[in-house]
């Protein structure tokens, strides 16, 4: 039994301080093994984005521990994140955006550019190296965001609803691309989403969080073999798994609503 790449124990995050603090997340235990693709789904406001932020050091646990094995190994970039919005810098070109993580961690200019260039090609952005994001479509902008995170070769890739603002067709295209990337790189991914379909197509495991403060309600293995395509959606097991998780989620949406109504009343 190897050590998990991500080891979360009794994690709690409270926003604000003292008695006026709001419980955002937890207590929560979660292990993610190396190379595993784990999706975290949950109703709005359940703290799943908070979990993503903790994993990349943008938020601090209020209690409990989050251990990245990469940190222990002394990795240069234990984790990197892809956001839904404001992901890439509009004042930097495509190449500069992708090279950003390398540049700020002290990789020399020529090498950073060379590595960024290889990601430009890999993500199908050839010819747009010197374009600014404003000249790119939403899908291409998000490819830049993914490339920027992957260029630093993070041990854990965190994705916080990365396809949330794309139209359905484009989302499918990017999901297929991500399946291909994961197939090639075998990287550890924690993927935050509110779409069960996205989660089931992409993941090895789907973790369902409760309404705020998010706790783990279910942790299901996704049995479909890899390499995968979007066609797993047609598998009869896909439908039943989705149905099963949907019922769990559905109950939480109602819980959240009645809690809000109580608070309002």
């Amino acid at each position, binding site marked *: 039994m190897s050590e998990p790449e991500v080891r979360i124990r009794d994690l709690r995050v409270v926003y604000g301080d003292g008695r006026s603090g709001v419980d955002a997340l937890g207590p929560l235990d979660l292990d993610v093994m190396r190379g595993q693709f784990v999706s975290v789904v949950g109703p709005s406001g359940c703290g799943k984005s908070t979990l993503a*932020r903790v994993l*990349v*050091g*943008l938020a601090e646990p209020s209690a409990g521990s989050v251990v990245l094995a990469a940190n222990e190994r002394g990795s240069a*970039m234990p*984790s*990197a*994140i892809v*956001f839904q*919005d*404001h*992901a*890439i*810098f*509009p*004042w*930097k070109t495509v190449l500069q955006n992708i090279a*950003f*993580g390398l540049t*700020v*961690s002290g990789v020399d200019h020529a090498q950073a550019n060379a590595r960024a260039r290889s990601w430009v090609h*890999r*993500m*199908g952005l*050839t*010819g*747009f190296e010197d*374009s*600014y*994001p*404003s*000249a*790119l*479509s939403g*899908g*291409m902008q998000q*490819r830049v965001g993914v490339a920027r995170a992957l260029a*630093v070769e993070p041990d854990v890739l965190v994705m916080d609803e990365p396809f949330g603002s794309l139209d359905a067709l484009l989302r499918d*295209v990017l999901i297929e*691309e991500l399946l*291909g990337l994961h197939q090639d790189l075998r990287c550890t991914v924690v993927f935050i989403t509110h779409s069960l379909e996205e989660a089931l197509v992409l993941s090895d495991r789907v973790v369902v969080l409760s309404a705020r403060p998010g706790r783990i309600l279910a942790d299901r293995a996704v049995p479909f073999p890899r390499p995968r395509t979007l066609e797993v959606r047609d598998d009869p097991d896909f439908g039943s798994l989705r149905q099963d998780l949907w019922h769990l989620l559905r109950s939480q949406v109602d819980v959240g609503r009645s809690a809000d109504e109580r608070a309002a009343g």
Partner: protein
Amino acid sequence: MSVPQAEAQGSTAAAAVAGGRPAHRRARIGWILPLSLVLLWEGLTAVGVIDDRFFPPPSTIGIGAVRMVAEGDLLGDTLLTITRIAAGFVIGGILGYLTGLATGVFLTARRIVEPTLSAIYTVPKIALLPVFLTIFGFGEAPKIALVSLTVFFYVWIYTMEAVVQIPRGYRDAARSFRVTRRQELVHVVMPATLPSVFTGLRVAIAVAVLVTISSEYIVGGSGLGYLIFNSRALFKIEDAFVGIVVVAFLGYTLQLLVMRIGARVTRWHGSAPVATVRVNV
């Protein structure tokens, strides 16, 4: 990975159209109004509706300008005024930008200085001229100091607000790569605020013209402000109008210059900076 070429090229083509020809057409439309007014003015003086002793027609002003350039005082006064504006603009701009960054980035700094600066901000700067004359004596110093102060406030406020309003996502994206504070400043804060800083600079240069002319008007001796004031006092109405026209052109040109530089350094920004003008001299 597949390359969605059509998708990409479509959007760049759209961007090119948005920033191309229509902009030139907009620029041309801007000339219609001033040219019509000039023609109307000329026409009304020719038929005698406007008294040309008090409002000399544009043609007379044009001839007057040529004469004044030949006599040698117009260019000299214009240069002096430009020098004062430029000196004040550079000093006030740099100090305002640095203060804006510092107060934008550090909440404590903002809390310490903001009430004081806001109080001074509301004082019409030209009202401080007597104070500055007392401090700096006569000569260039009080005028340049006054222009600097005016420019400082605009640039400071625009910069500070821009820093505060940087979407959190940009900073988070940078911080997720474990950047240092200095890297965050250089890679996020400074570029993200440039469009607003240039909006502030554009407003500031316009007000700098106004303050420079006013202080020349009051202090006297030299510059376009003095030329306008003095000519009127000597009933050389035509010369006063020449001065007014030169000031108008100067203000227009300097604003255009700042906007052009701004557009160049913020090429990545979709639209040209638009001034929400808050004039408070």
